């Protein structure tokens, strides 16, 4: 189902290249990632019996849950040419709060909404610093990355809290009956559909792409740039905090260092999915394919006893290859047709 989703949710974005031959539509970066995903899945299913069974798939998908959730919000931000590096720290802070409050005897029904609100507040701080002061989000969220992680340590210190209510733990680890899909992943699927529609088919999505591609033009077109960015940061914080709740319950362990370093995994997935870090380009389908590709490939390598170091190399090569292949193909095709380098398009970040 994951593959279908990825395909269905990749509506075309009009890129500058669409004037070229129609074939190049299929050589887009995000489509390439989708194809790789299918290949990995098929190869895995054929090659190792441990891979394509319900138990393993359920686990592998569940293990991606938090990254996938956060990647949704991150995609929106990156399309609008912003980034939130503090997500993993918000996740940690949320985890620490869940642990602390639970330890203090609060009811989990109170804790969860409260923590999500705190996450939204963290996002609000990011958003205000970016929109009110006009600071680059990379700088702001590197700062809050340290700040929120630090607050998590302040809240929980060296304690590790466990023994959360089983019914809630079950919600985060059990599968939807009859499928190998854990509940958080099912929730993710629903949210992904909503996000995809919002991004690719609504005025809000159009506004995001315009903001990301040319913020001044968007402002002149009456788009409330600052407000929209603020909302995006709040969403990002909120989702990260919710992911923190899922994380805590899924592992049954609240620690201040939960999820540290997760931001790079999210960014890697978003980049692999073909979203342009300069903003204004990308598809949600690509991102979903990217998340699944990284996750399933790692799972497959692990099952085949490929060492961590090689896994790391493979992830890195995947990133490089997925960006460079469409370019190489385009260049090769151009060379064949006419010997004309277009305007010297310089490299971008």
């Amino acid at each position, binding site marked *: 189902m994951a593959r279908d989703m990825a395909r269905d949710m990749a509506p075309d974005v009009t890129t500058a290249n669409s004037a070229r031959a129609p074939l190049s539509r299929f050589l887009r970066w995000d489509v390439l990632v989708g194809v790789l995903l299918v290949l990995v899945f098929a190869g895995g299913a054929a090659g190792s019996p441990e891979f394509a069974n319900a138990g393993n798939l359920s686990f592998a998908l569940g293990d991606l849950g938090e990254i996938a959730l956060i990647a949704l919000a991150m995609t929106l931000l990156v399309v609008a040419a912003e980034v939130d590096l503090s997500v993993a720290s918000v996740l940690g802070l949320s985890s620490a709060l869940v642990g602390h409050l639970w330890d203090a005897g609060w009811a989990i029904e109170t804790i969860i909404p409260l923590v999500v609100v705190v996450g939204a507040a963290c996002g609000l701080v990011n958003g205000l610093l970016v929109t009110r002061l006009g600071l680059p989000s990379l700088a702001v969220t590197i700062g809050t990355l340290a700040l929120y992680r630090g607050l998590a340590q302040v809240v929980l210190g060296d304690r590790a809290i466990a023994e959360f209510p089983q019914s809630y733990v079950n919600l985060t680890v059990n599968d939807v009956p009859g499928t190998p899909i854990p509940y958080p992943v099912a929730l993710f699927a629903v949210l992904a559909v909503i996000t995809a529609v919002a991004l690719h088919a609504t005025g809000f999505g159009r506004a995001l792409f315009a903001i990301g591609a040319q913020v001044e033009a968007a402002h002149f077109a009456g788009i409330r740039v600052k407000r929209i960015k603020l909302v995006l940061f709040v969403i990002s914080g909120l989702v990260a905090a919710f992911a923190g709740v899922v994380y805590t319950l899924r592992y049954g362990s609240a620690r201040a260092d939960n999820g540290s370093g997760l931001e790079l995994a999210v960014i890697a997935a978003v980049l692999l999915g073909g979203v342009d870090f300069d903003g204004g380009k990308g598809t949600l389908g690509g991102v979903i394919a990217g998340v699944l590709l990284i996750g399933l490939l790692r799972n497959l390598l692990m099952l085949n*006893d490929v060492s961590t170091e090689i896994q790391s190399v493979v992830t890195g090569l995947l990133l490089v290859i997925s960006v460079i292949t469409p370019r190489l193909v385009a260049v090769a095709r151009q060379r064949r047709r006419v010997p004309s380098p277009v305007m010297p398009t310089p490299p971008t970040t």
Partner: protein
Amino acid sequence: GGTTKESASSQAPAAPAQTAAATANPNAPIKEGLQIAFLPKQINNPYLTILDKAGIDAAAEYKGTAKEVGPSDASASSQVSYINTLIQQQQDAILISANDANAVCGPLNQARSKGIKVVSYDSDASKDCRDLFINQASSEDVGRSEVKMLADMIDHKGEIAVLSATANATNQNTWIEFMKDELTKPEYKDMKLVKVAYGDDDDQKSFQETQGLLQAYPNLKGIIAPTTVGIAAAARYVSGSKYKGKIVVTGLGTPNQMREFVKNGTVEKFALWNPKDLGYLASYAAASLVSGRITGAEGEKFTAGKLGEFTVGKDGEVILGPPFTFDASNVDDFDF
């Protein structure tokens, strides 16, 4: 109704029942062709690498195959995916040095429900979700002896500090508790623990923390670093600074790392057990479990190859032995 902490304990899952029901047969031979896997906190941790290698060699002795797999970062979550993989691969036993005692619990119990034996070593998992814990030394011994060792070197007088690993490290935190308890005894009334600092088992961070400690507490007399990374970093900073000879550094370290500092006089004594023995013992314990020689109940005995006989203690704990103290006279006799 509200799901508060009180209601939770009543809902806590019972540990899988079938393992407890089995009875031990101390005379059963160790099965051949066992497949066991070591899952360290983090691959590339030199200390755990030594341990796991010894365990893998031990497996060859009893004609089993062992391997080491693990994450490159010491986070709880990354270990969990490896447990899943090992379940899928239907290993006979998983040996784990847990990053987070609780986070690995669910998957470990899943493994046990599929008949896989779980042995924790070096750093324990929650006792509900493993069959045995191979402890390097009794935690109480480690904590108290560290304090004694330092006290002897500073004449039971002055300010001291602890340089630990991460704030969440289970074993370090247990030791530190015992250290604090030991310090309440009357003979230590002139010693004061002024700070517990965390070097996160990161060489550079530990180095910088040591610097900070010495500046912040000019009257500091000694540092206990109950972690191999921390003690090496602390010793290195002290040996290259004006504090050399004025500050006593001790703790847990490996002879290879510490040799230089013992020789140049920065460090007089430090302690550790033989990590190779620990790996060896863990490997044999796992094999004994799988072969049905023991079940993990208190009082059971088993032989661990060349190391001889061990007894399962309370809560399924097996203790390697008291820590060994290294000093200038013996540090050259070891190579690890």
